[in-house]
């Protein structure tokens, strides 16, 4: 097997046994990138020199018996929404095209302090706004002159907003990746690309240095080839951070130790509202088979109802744009990023308000503009109560309903998306239909609950032109199954 196809667990064991070096592992990843990246387009920025430097440092530490952790030397891909010191960070927008962060985000800092290696920054929907990576301002797939493509079928989107990270993992262009999830942005692309994607409980992982989209909903999480790898990475990402006032002080357990436990008697809730109209019958079939498998392993299936969950999408599309309009106000053409001033010379000065509105209009893509305006509207005088405050109240009801249901079941199983991966261009001209594809992932975010997307099966035979290769041991095949586990886990 090629080294780039290894999981974190496998690579870590081989490194520990000195069967391979981090440099060999990192070079294998870059060889793979050379082969398929022109088709997949997962990365906005590649850091080969820096990666090899970090890999050599890891091998040196290992030689002197001074490794930092079990992920020392493991090459990781990072969504281009995390500030990485000295490495261009764009949020997939033109407004930050040349932006070089002066500090490191807490989640990535923790990875490098554990010895991991940075491969590069992956593509995403602009400012994390989208479900297909199509709103990225960067054409990362050179062969098709498009943004990131789904490695399983190059005519399909990889999902979004963490589409680049998902594609990089699925195409073995990294050992693992990290992303962010505000309404499903880790879980949905994980599902479309047939990998594991986890959104932890809100507050579990620090958001410091992660370009903010919606501060009360954003969460950082692992995107990996196996569930075990997600558990391993989560341990290194988690923990209280004094720079994030919403971060949790709860202890960080060794999550990997909870894997492969007996699930006899585990109560699994199946909410009827998630299996009705709009669900693709092929997806339904895959989930039914997965649930049967869980039953055969000893789990108990309980029928439940989540009548308020259907309002979660409306809650999300009020609260999220409101927070976005606030968070993106900092991009004003003055502090940093693209400015309309660059085009002028001193003799042709402009009115300040024009500097703001022109810089922003030039730098932001249309989805960003839409959401900023939606947010400004629902927060504006005369509309605040009817929209924003109302949404906050329904948010309370959504959370209360989950709390009640979790007194009866340990986890909830649903499909991650109502349909399999869709084609490029299919939803991009109808924003509302794009938003509706989030309907199953969104409820977890306003409720702050942890949720994981685990591959459960293919809906159609996958057709690959460029091929991600056959799945290795421990990996399942494609398409979505969503877990919304109890906070207790």
């Amino acid at each position: 097997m090629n080294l780039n196809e290894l999981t974190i667990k496998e690579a870590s064991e081989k490194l520990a046994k000195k069967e391979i070096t981090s440099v060999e592992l990192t070079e294998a990843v870059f060889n793979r990138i050379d082969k398929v990246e022109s088709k997949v387009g997962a990365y906005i920025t590649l850091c080969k020199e820096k990666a090899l430097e970090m890999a050599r440092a890891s091998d040196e530490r290992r030689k002197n018996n001074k490794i930092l952790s079990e992920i020392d030397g493991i090459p990781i891909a990072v969504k281009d929404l995390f500030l990485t010191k000295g490495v261009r960070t764009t949020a997939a927008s033109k407004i930050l095209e040349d932006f070089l962060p002066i500090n490191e985000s807490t989640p990535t800092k923790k990875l490098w302090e554990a010895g991991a290696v940075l491969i590069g920054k992956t593509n995403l929907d602009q400012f994390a706004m989208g479900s297909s990576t199509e709103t990225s301002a960067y054409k990362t797939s050179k062969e098709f002159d498009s943004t990131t493509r789904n490695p399983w079928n190059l005519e399909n989107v990889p999902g979004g907003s963490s589409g680049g990270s998902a594609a990089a993992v699925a195409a073995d262009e990294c050992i693992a990746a990290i992303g962010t999830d505000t309404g499903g942005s880790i879980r949905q692309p994980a599902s479309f690309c047939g990998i594991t994607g986890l959104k932890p409980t809100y507050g579990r992982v620090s958001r410091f240095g992660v370009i903010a989209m919606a501060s009360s909903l954003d969460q950082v999480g692992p995107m990996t080839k196996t569930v075990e790898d997600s558990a391993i990475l989560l341990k290194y990402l988690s923990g209280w951070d004094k720079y994030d006032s919403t971060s949790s002080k709860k202890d960080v357990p060794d999550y990997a130790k909870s894997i492969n436990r007996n699930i006899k008697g585990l109560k699994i809730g199946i909410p009827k509202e998630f299996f009705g109209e709009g669900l693709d019958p092929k997806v339904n079939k895959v989930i039914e088979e997965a649930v049967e498998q869980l039953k055969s392993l000893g789990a108990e299936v309980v029928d439940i109802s989540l009548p308020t969950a259907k309002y979660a999408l409306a809650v999300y599309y009020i609260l999220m744009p409101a927070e976005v309009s606030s968070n993106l106000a900092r991009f004003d053409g003055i502090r940093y990023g693209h400015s309309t001033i660059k085009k002028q010379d001193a003799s042709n000065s402009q009115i300040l308000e024009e500097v703001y509105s022109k810089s922003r209009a030039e730098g932001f893509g249309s989805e960003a503009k839409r959401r900023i305006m939606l947010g400004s509207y629902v927060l504006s005088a005369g509309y605040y109560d009817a929209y924003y405050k109302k949404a906050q109240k329904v948010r309370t009801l959504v959370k209360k309903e989950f709390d009640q249901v979790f007194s009866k079941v340990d986890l909830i199983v649903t499909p991650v998306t109502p349909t399999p991966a869709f084609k490029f261009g299919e939803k991009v001209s109808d924003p509302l239909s794009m938003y509706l594809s989030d309907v199953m992932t969104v409820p977890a975010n306003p409720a702050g609950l942890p949720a994981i997307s685990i591959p459960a099966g293919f809906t159609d035979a996958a057709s690959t032109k460029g091929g991600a290769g056959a799945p290795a041991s421990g990996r399942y095949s494609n398409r979505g199954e969503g877990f919304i586990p109890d906070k207790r886990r």
Partner: protein
Amino acid sequence: MSKLDISQIEHIAKLSRLKLTDEEKKLYSEQLSSVLDYVEQLSLVDTKDVEPTANITGLKNVLREDEVEESGISHEDIKLNAQKKAVLNLKTVILSCQESLSK
């Protein structure tokens, strides 16, 4: 059914500090109206006596002692993103503020 007309879009664009073309104003008027249509279903939910949730952690007043510590960011680092020349005429800034205040 709330249809946002062009003048409302212009107002929102101004609040958002976004300069829009005429085509954009028309396009966003339609697209935003359809989204608002969808989210308006929340008016069907009974929220009498329900408290709003701003933050799901329930944390309040997360404070620290006002102590100075090193940021770890050098003067060189800070200049990484500074533009070579700051081109803002002070007179136009003042005029612009006066204009906004008089509205």
